[in-house]
Structures are given as C-alpha cells and as structure tokens.
C-alpha cells in the first residue's frame, strides 16, 4: 500500500516533469511545475521528512512559483498569444543532442544505482545496527529546532544573512533604472 502510493507520487512527479519540459506553452509548464513540486513534497514525506515537505510547499509553491509567474508575465508580451497557442503540436520536438545527453546521464546513473544496489556505506549500516535511524514516530520538528539552535547555529545564521543579501540583491536588480 505504502509502495503503491510512493509509485503514484513518483509517477506524478516524473510525468509532470516530462510534460513541463516538453510543452511549448510556458504558462502550462509553470502550472505543471507546481504539480511537480507538490509531488516532490509528497515524496519527502515518504522519506520521513515532514518538515522539509512543508517547507517545500511553503517556499516553492508560495514563493518561487509566484515569482516565476510574475517573471514570466513581465517578460512575455505575447502571453495571451502564448496562452491561446494551445498548439497543434502538443509536445515540442525534442532537441536530439540534449535528449541524447540526458538519456545518457540517466543510463549512467541507473547503471550506478543498480550496481550499487544496497551496499550501504559504513555509517549507514552502523546506524542501522545501532537503531539510529529516523522512525515515523519521531518528532522531527522538535529535533530540527534543537539542532538548528545548537549544532547548526553558524550555518543557519550564515544562510539567513545570505538569503537577506540575495533578496536585497534581487530587489535591486529588478528595480527600474533611474531615468537620469
């Protein structure tokens, strides 16, 4: 049951992603991207990372996607034309070189995964043997808060400053040039 749902989510993510890259219409792609991100959040939950999944939805769906839609609308004067262009061709003709490259990468990665199989690294096997693995019953949020404020305080602060700087920079870049 659990596996079936995982597969469903995985299929949703991969199918939506494929549609995102193959559709000619950018607007549609953006909405399909939204679905992909949701699917990803679902997959995070399967990995027992409920806080990450929530954050994913919050940040991506609430922030990144909106930003993208804004950017798309600002940059594409032909939005309406694009929206109407439901296109005789549902799928874009793939660029064969990049397709080949991607498939090649996929093949290599798949090969690596299959070869690797379940030969876990030593720290994983050690943790499994000692029972130090996250269980679905664990309170992740509590643990994360403690870790952020203790062990990972410095990276947390650095990333906060970084985020601030990035946002300010983005705002600065996006503003209109002074006429003078």
């Amino acid at each position, binding site marked *: 049951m659990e596996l079936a749902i995982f597969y469903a989510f995985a299929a949703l993510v991969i199918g939506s*992603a494929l549609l*995102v890259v193959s559709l000619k219409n950018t607007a549609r792609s953006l909405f399909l991207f939204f679905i992909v991100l949701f699917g990803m959040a679902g997959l995070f939950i399967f*990995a027992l990372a409920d806080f990450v999944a929530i954050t994913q939805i919050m940040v*991506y769906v609430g922030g990144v996607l909106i930003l993208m839609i804004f*950017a798309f609308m600002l940059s594409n004067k032909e939005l309406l034309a694009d929206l109407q262009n439901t296109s005789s061709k549902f799928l874009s003709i793939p660029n064969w070189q990049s*397709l080949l490259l*991607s498939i090649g990468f996929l093949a290599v990665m798949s090969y690596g995964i299959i070869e690797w199989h379940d030969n876990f690294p030593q720290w994983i096997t050690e943790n499994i043997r000692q029972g130090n693995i*996250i269980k679905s019953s664990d309170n*992740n949020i509590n643990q994360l808060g403690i870790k952020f404020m203790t062990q990972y305080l410095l990276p947390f602060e650095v990333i906060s400053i970084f985020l601030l700087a990035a946002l300010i920079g983005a705002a600065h*870049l996006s503003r209109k040039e002074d006429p003078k």
Partner: protein
Amino acid sequence: MISLTHFLFVSACLFCIGLYAIIAKRNSIMILIGIEFIINAAILNLVAFGRYDKINYSGQIFALFAIVLAAAAVAVGLAIILNVYRKYKTINPENITDLRD
C-alpha cells in the same frame, strides 16, 4: 519502508529531466525551472539519506538549507532574467550570444 534505491532512481530521473530542460529549452524561465528540478532531485537525495542519521539530522537540515538557497537563487535568477529581457527584449538564450568569440 521505501528502500533507498527507489528514491535514488526518482531523483536520477528528475535530474535528467532538469538537465534536458537546461540544455534544450529556448526560454530562460524554463532553464530556471530545470535548475529547480535538479535542486529538487538533490534535496530528495539528501532527505532520503538523512533518514539514516538520526543523531545529527544533517540530511533534513541541509535539505532545508538547499531549499533556502534555491529560493535565493530563483529570486536572483529571475531578477537577472528581467534585466536581460529589458536589455535584449528577449529571454531566449539562443539570441544572447555576447560571449561569442
């Protein structure tokens, strides 16, 4: 309990799709989407591996960091795209060839 291999495979698929988007798409926004795909693939891997590290929670914490970085990257990237659009009146990277020799 879902095995690690499943996650890795989904991640690999997503990575490859992102890669394709980056290289093949003729739209800067789509390229940005491709980058997001790749980052998401990475986050999925972090989360999947982080399951086996209860003491440090490093997987989930770095996944959160990555999400934040991705958000920042998107913000800056979109700002850049807007500027490029203003300058070149297009967001098709095919037409922006200033780096050409």
